[in-house]
Protein backbone atom coordinates (compact mmCIF):
# COMPACT_ATOMS: atom_id res chain seq x y z
CA UNK A 1 0.00 0.00 0.00
CA UNK A 2 1.44 3.34 -1.00
CA UNK A 3 1.20 6.59 0.92
CA UNK A 4 1.85 10.22 0.02
CA UNK A 5 5.11 10.02 1.98
CA UNK A 6 6.23 7.10 -0.19
CA UNK A 7 5.49 9.01 -3.36
CA UNK A 8 7.27 12.15 -2.18
CA UNK A 9 10.30 10.15 -1.11
CA UNK A 10 10.48 8.25 -4.40
CA UNK A 11 10.02 11.49 -6.33
CA UNK A 12 12.97 12.97 -4.49
CA UNK A 13 15.16 9.96 -5.31
CA UNK A 14 14.16 10.01 -8.98
CA UNK A 15 14.50 13.80 -9.35
CA UNK A 16 17.92 13.79 -7.68
CA UNK A 17 19.12 10.98 -9.94
CA UNK A 18 17.87 12.77 -13.05
CA UNK A 19 19.74 15.88 -12.01
CA UNK A 20 22.89 13.81 -11.59
CA UNK A 21 22.38 12.49 -15.12
CA UNK A 22 22.49 16.07 -16.38
CA UNK A 23 18.76 16.87 -16.78
CA UNK A 24 17.85 20.54 -16.34
CA UNK A 25 16.39 20.79 -12.79
CA UNK A 26 13.84 23.36 -13.98
CA UNK A 27 12.45 20.84 -16.49
CA UNK A 28 12.14 17.91 -14.09
CA UNK A 29 8.46 17.31 -13.29
CA UNK A 30 6.04 14.38 -13.37
CA UNK A 31 4.79 15.18 -16.86
CA UNK A 32 8.26 15.54 -18.40
CA UNK A 33 9.26 12.73 -20.74
CA UNK A 34 12.68 11.19 -20.48
CA UNK A 35 13.21 12.15 -24.10
CA UNK A 36 12.57 15.83 -23.31
CA UNK A 37 14.99 15.61 -20.40
CA UNK A 38 17.63 14.01 -22.64
CA UNK A 39 17.74 10.98 -20.36
CA UNK A 40 18.80 7.93 -22.39
CA UNK A 41 18.78 4.17 -21.93
CA UNK A 42 22.07 4.13 -20.00
CA UNK A 43 20.69 6.73 -17.58
CA UNK A 44 17.55 4.62 -17.12
CA UNK A 45 19.68 1.52 -16.51
CA UNK A 46 21.57 3.48 -13.86
CA UNK A 47 18.29 4.71 -12.35
CA UNK A 48 17.12 1.07 -12.18
CA UNK A 49 20.21 0.18 -10.14
CA UNK A 50 19.72 3.12 -7.78
CA UNK A 51 16.06 2.21 -7.25
CA UNK A 52 16.94 -1.45 -6.72
CA UNK A 53 19.55 -0.52 -4.11
CA UNK A 54 17.29 1.96 -2.28
CA UNK A 55 13.87 0.31 -2.54
CA UNK A 56 14.52 -3.26 -3.61
CA UNK A 57 12.40 -2.72 -6.73
CA UNK A 58 13.73 -4.55 -9.78
CA UNK A 59 13.00 -3.21 -13.25
CA UNK A 60 12.89 -5.60 -16.19
CA UNK A 61 14.00 -4.24 -19.57
CA UNK A 62 10.35 -4.49 -20.70
CA UNK A 63 9.25 -2.39 -17.69
CA UNK A 64 11.73 0.32 -18.57
CA UNK A 65 10.51 0.42 -22.18
CA UNK A 66 7.01 1.31 -20.95
CA UNK A 67 8.17 4.23 -18.80
CA UNK A 68 7.85 7.39 -20.84
CA UNK A 69 7.54 10.11 -18.22
CA UNK A 70 9.05 10.87 -14.84
CA UNK A 71 5.62 10.25 -13.29
CA UNK A 72 5.46 6.79 -14.93
CA UNK A 73 8.73 5.85 -13.22
CA UNK A 74 7.68 7.20 -9.81
CA UNK A 75 4.32 5.42 -9.96
CA UNK A 76 5.95 2.16 -11.05
CA UNK A 77 8.39 2.26 -8.14
CA UNK A 78 5.71 3.15 -5.57
CA UNK A 79 3.39 0.41 -6.88
CA UNK A 80 6.15 -2.22 -6.72
CA UNK A 81 7.75 -1.26 -3.40
Amino acid sequence: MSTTTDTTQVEQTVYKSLETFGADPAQIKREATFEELDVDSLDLAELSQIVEDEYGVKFKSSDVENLKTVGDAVDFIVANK
Partner: protein
Amino acid sequence: MGERMSRPDDAAIIVTGAARGIGAASAQELAADGWAVAVLHRNGRGDAEALVQQIVDQGGRALPIRADLREPDEVERAFETAQQELGPVLGLVNNAGVRADNLALSITDEDWQLVLDTNLSAAFRLTRRAMRGMLRARFGRIVNVASVVGPRANPGQANYAASKAGLIGMTKTVAAEVARKGVTVNAVAPGFIATEMTKDVPPAVLEAVPARRAGQPQEVAACVRFLASDAATYVTGTTLYVDGGMSA
Protein backbone atom coordinates in the same frame (compact mmCIF):
# COMPACT_ATOMS: atom_id res chain seq x y z
CA MET B 1 26.85 15.72 -15.41
CA GLY B 2 30.05 14.62 -17.03
CA GLU B 3 33.04 12.76 -15.85
CA ARG B 4 35.41 13.16 -12.96
CA MET B 5 38.90 13.80 -14.26
CA SER B 6 40.88 12.27 -11.44
CA ARG B 7 40.71 9.21 -9.25
CA PRO B 8 39.21 9.63 -5.78
CA ASP B 9 41.86 9.08 -3.07
CA ASP B 10 40.18 6.07 -1.49
CA ALA B 11 39.60 4.15 -4.74
CA ALA B 12 40.26 0.43 -4.88
CA ILE B 13 41.06 -1.74 -7.88
CA ILE B 14 40.46 -5.44 -8.33
CA VAL B 15 43.10 -7.43 -10.19
CA THR B 16 42.12 -11.00 -11.05
CA GLY B 17 44.70 -13.74 -11.43
CA ALA B 18 47.00 -11.53 -9.42
CA ALA B 19 49.09 -14.11 -7.58
CA ARG B 20 51.65 -14.44 -10.34
CA GLY B 21 52.83 -13.19 -13.71
CA ILE B 22 51.20 -10.23 -15.42
CA GLY B 23 48.54 -9.96 -12.68
CA ALA B 24 51.09 -9.74 -9.87
CA ALA B 25 53.21 -7.22 -11.74
CA SER B 26 50.10 -5.15 -12.47
CA ALA B 27 49.04 -5.24 -8.82
CA GLN B 28 52.46 -3.89 -7.84
CA GLU B 29 52.39 -1.12 -10.43
CA LEU B 30 48.86 -0.09 -9.51
CA ALA B 31 49.66 -0.03 -5.80
CA ALA B 32 52.70 2.14 -6.56
CA ASP B 33 50.36 4.48 -8.43
CA GLY B 34 48.17 4.89 -5.33
CA TRP B 35 45.40 2.33 -5.85
CA ALA B 36 44.31 0.07 -2.99
CA VAL B 37 44.59 -3.34 -4.65
CA ALA B 38 42.41 -6.43 -4.21
CA VAL B 39 44.68 -9.32 -5.16
CA LEU B 40 42.31 -11.99 -6.43
CA HIS B 41 43.58 -15.53 -6.82
CA ARG B 42 42.13 -19.02 -7.08
CA ASN B 43 44.87 -21.25 -5.77
CA GLY B 44 47.86 -19.00 -5.26
CA ARG B 45 47.42 -18.17 -1.60
CA GLY B 46 51.10 -18.16 -0.68
CA ASP B 47 52.09 -16.01 -3.64
CA ALA B 48 49.14 -13.64 -3.13
CA GLU B 49 49.95 -13.16 0.55
CA ALA B 50 53.63 -12.53 -0.20
CA LEU B 51 52.68 -9.99 -2.87
CA VAL B 52 50.31 -8.19 -0.50
CA GLN B 53 53.03 -8.07 2.15
CA GLN B 54 55.45 -6.60 -0.37
CA ILE B 55 52.93 -3.89 -1.33
CA VAL B 56 52.20 -3.08 2.31
CA ASP B 57 55.94 -2.92 3.10
CA GLN B 58 56.27 -0.34 0.36
CA GLY B 59 53.55 1.79 1.94
CA GLY B 60 50.65 0.62 -0.24
CA ARG B 61 47.31 -0.98 0.55
CA ALA B 62 46.34 -4.44 -0.65
CA LEU B 63 44.28 -7.46 0.33
CA PRO B 64 44.43 -11.07 -0.90
CA ILE B 65 40.99 -12.51 -1.78
CA ARG B 66 40.47 -16.10 -2.87
CA ALA B 67 37.76 -16.67 -5.44
CA ASP B 68 36.87 -19.14 -8.15
CA LEU B 69 35.61 -16.69 -10.75
CA ARG B 70 33.74 -19.38 -12.64
CA GLU B 71 31.19 -19.25 -9.81
CA PRO B 72 28.94 -16.16 -10.05
CA ASP B 73 28.35 -16.18 -6.27
CA GLU B 74 32.09 -16.04 -5.64
CA VAL B 75 32.47 -13.10 -8.01
CA GLU B 76 29.86 -11.22 -5.99
CA ARG B 77 31.41 -12.19 -2.66
CA ALA B 78 34.91 -11.18 -3.76
CA PHE B 79 33.62 -7.85 -5.01
CA GLU B 80 31.81 -7.11 -1.74
CA THR B 81 34.88 -8.06 0.30
CA ALA B 82 37.09 -5.75 -1.75
CA GLN B 83 34.65 -2.90 -1.41
CA GLN B 84 34.18 -3.32 2.34
CA GLU B 85 37.83 -3.81 3.21
CA LEU B 86 39.53 -1.46 0.76
CA GLY B 87 37.07 1.20 -0.43
CA PRO B 88 34.92 1.93 -3.47
CA VAL B 89 35.96 -0.32 -6.34
CA LEU B 90 36.59 2.11 -9.20
CA GLY B 91 39.15 0.01 -11.04
CA LEU B 92 39.13 -3.51 -12.45
CA VAL B 93 41.81 -5.49 -14.24
CA ASN B 94 40.39 -8.66 -15.77
CA ASN B 95 43.58 -10.64 -16.03
CA ALA B 96 42.70 -14.17 -14.87
CA GLY B 97 43.17 -16.58 -17.70
CA VAL B 98 43.65 -20.27 -18.35
CA ARG B 99 44.68 -22.36 -21.32
CA ALA B 100 43.48 -25.80 -22.34
CA ASP B 101 45.11 -26.19 -25.74
CA ASN B 102 44.19 -28.65 -28.42
CA LEU B 103 43.35 -28.68 -32.09
CA ALA B 104 39.74 -27.57 -32.53
CA LEU B 105 38.85 -31.06 -33.70
CA SER B 106 39.85 -32.40 -30.30
CA ILE B 107 38.72 -29.66 -27.88
CA THR B 108 36.19 -31.19 -25.47
CA ASP B 109 33.08 -29.31 -24.37
CA GLU B 110 34.63 -29.16 -20.90
CA ASP B 111 37.83 -27.53 -22.13
CA TRP B 112 35.89 -25.10 -24.28
CA GLN B 113 33.68 -24.11 -21.35
CA LEU B 114 36.52 -23.91 -18.82
CA VAL B 115 38.43 -21.39 -20.94
CA LEU B 116 35.41 -19.31 -21.95
CA ASP B 117 34.01 -19.23 -18.39
CA THR B 118 37.30 -18.16 -16.82
CA ASN B 119 38.68 -15.83 -19.46
CA LEU B 120 35.49 -14.20 -20.75
CA SER B 121 32.33 -14.80 -18.68
CA ALA B 122 34.02 -14.02 -15.35
CA ALA B 123 35.38 -10.81 -16.83
CA PHE B 124 31.90 -9.85 -17.99
CA ARG B 125 30.32 -10.56 -14.60
CA LEU B 126 32.93 -8.51 -12.77
CA THR B 127 32.62 -5.71 -15.31
CA ARG B 128 28.83 -5.61 -14.91
CA ARG B 129 29.13 -5.57 -11.12
CA ALA B 130 31.87 -2.96 -10.99
CA MET B 131 30.20 -0.58 -13.43
CA ARG B 132 27.38 0.20 -10.99
CA GLY B 133 29.62 2.07 -8.60
CA MET B 134 31.80 3.47 -11.37
CA LEU B 135 28.83 5.07 -13.13
CA ARG B 136 27.65 6.68 -9.93
CA ALA B 137 31.14 7.94 -9.13
CA ARG B 138 31.51 9.21 -12.71
CA PHE B 139 34.91 7.57 -12.67
CA GLY B 140 36.04 4.09 -13.54
CA ARG B 141 38.92 2.23 -15.14
CA ILE B 142 38.54 -1.23 -16.61
CA VAL B 143 41.49 -2.95 -18.26
CA ASN B 144 41.02 -6.33 -19.88
CA VAL B 145 44.08 -8.45 -20.43
CA ALA B 146 43.52 -9.97 -23.88
CA SER B 147 46.22 -11.44 -26.11
CA VAL B 148 47.72 -11.27 -29.57
CA VAL B 149 46.02 -14.65 -29.93
CA GLY B 150 42.44 -13.92 -30.91
CA PRO B 151 43.03 -10.98 -33.20
CA ARG B 152 45.40 -13.39 -34.98
CA ALA B 153 45.40 -17.16 -35.37
CA ASN B 154 47.27 -19.62 -33.20
CA PRO B 155 46.57 -23.23 -34.12
CA GLY B 156 45.79 -25.29 -31.02
CA GLN B 157 44.10 -22.45 -29.16
CA ALA B 158 40.61 -22.04 -30.66
CA ASN B 159 39.06 -21.78 -27.19
CA TYR B 160 41.67 -19.35 -25.88
CA ALA B 161 41.54 -17.28 -29.09
CA ALA B 162 37.74 -17.09 -28.90
CA SER B 163 37.88 -15.93 -25.28
CA LYS B 164 40.48 -13.25 -25.96
CA ALA B 165 38.82 -11.99 -29.16
CA GLY B 166 35.61 -11.91 -27.11
CA LEU B 167 37.31 -9.78 -24.48
CA ILE B 168 38.38 -7.28 -27.12
CA GLY B 169 34.86 -7.16 -28.56
CA MET B 170 33.39 -6.67 -25.09
CA THR B 171 35.94 -3.96 -24.36
CA LYS B 172 34.91 -1.91 -27.38
CA THR B 173 31.17 -2.14 -26.87
CA VAL B 174 31.15 -1.53 -23.12
CA ALA B 175 33.55 1.38 -23.64
CA ALA B 176 31.13 2.98 -26.09
CA GLU B 177 28.21 2.45 -23.71
CA VAL B 178 29.75 4.17 -20.70
CA ALA B 179 32.26 6.64 -22.17
CA ARG B 180 30.24 9.74 -21.35
CA LYS B 181 30.08 8.78 -17.68
CA GLY B 182 33.82 8.96 -17.08
CA VAL B 183 34.36 5.20 -17.21
CA THR B 184 37.05 3.97 -19.61
CA VAL B 185 37.36 0.39 -20.80
CA ASN B 186 40.49 -0.75 -22.60
CA ALA B 187 42.43 -3.88 -23.34
CA VAL B 188 46.06 -4.81 -23.46
CA ALA B 189 47.13 -7.57 -25.82
CA PRO B 190 50.35 -9.17 -24.61
CA GLY B 191 52.45 -11.20 -27.00
CA PHE B 192 54.99 -13.73 -25.80
CA ILE B 193 55.55 -12.83 -22.14
CA ALA B 194 57.82 -14.85 -19.85
CA THR B 195 55.35 -16.26 -17.30
CA GLU B 196 54.25 -19.58 -15.86
CA MET B 197 51.66 -19.79 -18.66
CA THR B 198 54.23 -19.64 -21.42
CA LYS B 199 57.03 -21.68 -19.87
CA ASP B 200 56.28 -24.66 -22.16
CA VAL B 201 56.22 -22.54 -25.32
CA PRO B 202 59.21 -23.46 -27.55
CA PRO B 203 61.86 -20.71 -27.85
CA ALA B 204 61.50 -20.92 -31.66
CA VAL B 205 58.37 -18.77 -31.24
CA LEU B 206 60.69 -15.84 -30.57
CA GLU B 207 61.71 -15.86 -34.23
CA ALA B 208 58.28 -14.33 -34.96
CA VAL B 209 58.95 -11.50 -32.50
CA PRO B 210 60.76 -8.49 -34.03
CA ALA B 211 62.19 -7.62 -30.59
CA ARG B 212 63.77 -11.13 -30.54
CA ARG B 213 63.04 -11.66 -26.88
CA ALA B 214 60.17 -12.52 -24.61
CA GLY B 215 58.48 -9.63 -22.82
CA GLN B 216 58.55 -9.33 -19.05
CA PRO B 217 55.35 -9.12 -16.98
CA GLN B 218 56.44 -5.63 -15.81
CA GLU B 219 56.38 -4.41 -19.40
CA VAL B 220 52.69 -5.31 -19.65
CA ALA B 221 51.99 -4.01 -16.15
CA ALA B 222 53.35 -0.58 -17.07
CA CYS B 223 50.70 -0.36 -19.80
CA VAL B 224 47.97 -1.52 -17.42
CA ARG B 225 49.08 1.16 -14.97
CA PHE B 226 48.89 3.82 -17.68
CA LEU B 227 45.41 2.79 -18.87
CA ALA B 228 44.16 2.84 -15.26
CA SER B 229 45.70 6.22 -14.56
CA ASP B 230 44.42 9.80 -14.73
CA ALA B 231 46.77 10.27 -17.69
CA ALA B 232 44.56 8.02 -19.85
CA THR B 233 41.29 9.93 -19.38
CA TYR B 234 40.57 10.16 -23.13
CA VAL B 235 41.70 6.65 -24.03
CA THR B 236 38.82 4.20 -24.24
CA GLY B 237 37.75 1.20 -26.31
CA THR B 238 41.25 0.60 -27.53
CA THR B 239 43.59 -2.37 -27.45
CA LEU B 240 47.20 -1.69 -26.63
CA TYR B 241 49.49 -4.37 -28.08
CA VAL B 242 52.44 -5.20 -25.88
CA ASP B 243 54.17 -7.72 -28.06
CA GLY B 244 57.62 -6.60 -29.14
CA GLY B 245 56.29 -5.82 -32.59
CA MET B 246 54.72 -9.24 -33.20
CA SER B 247 51.49 -7.71 -34.58
CA ALA B 248 53.17 -4.97 -36.54
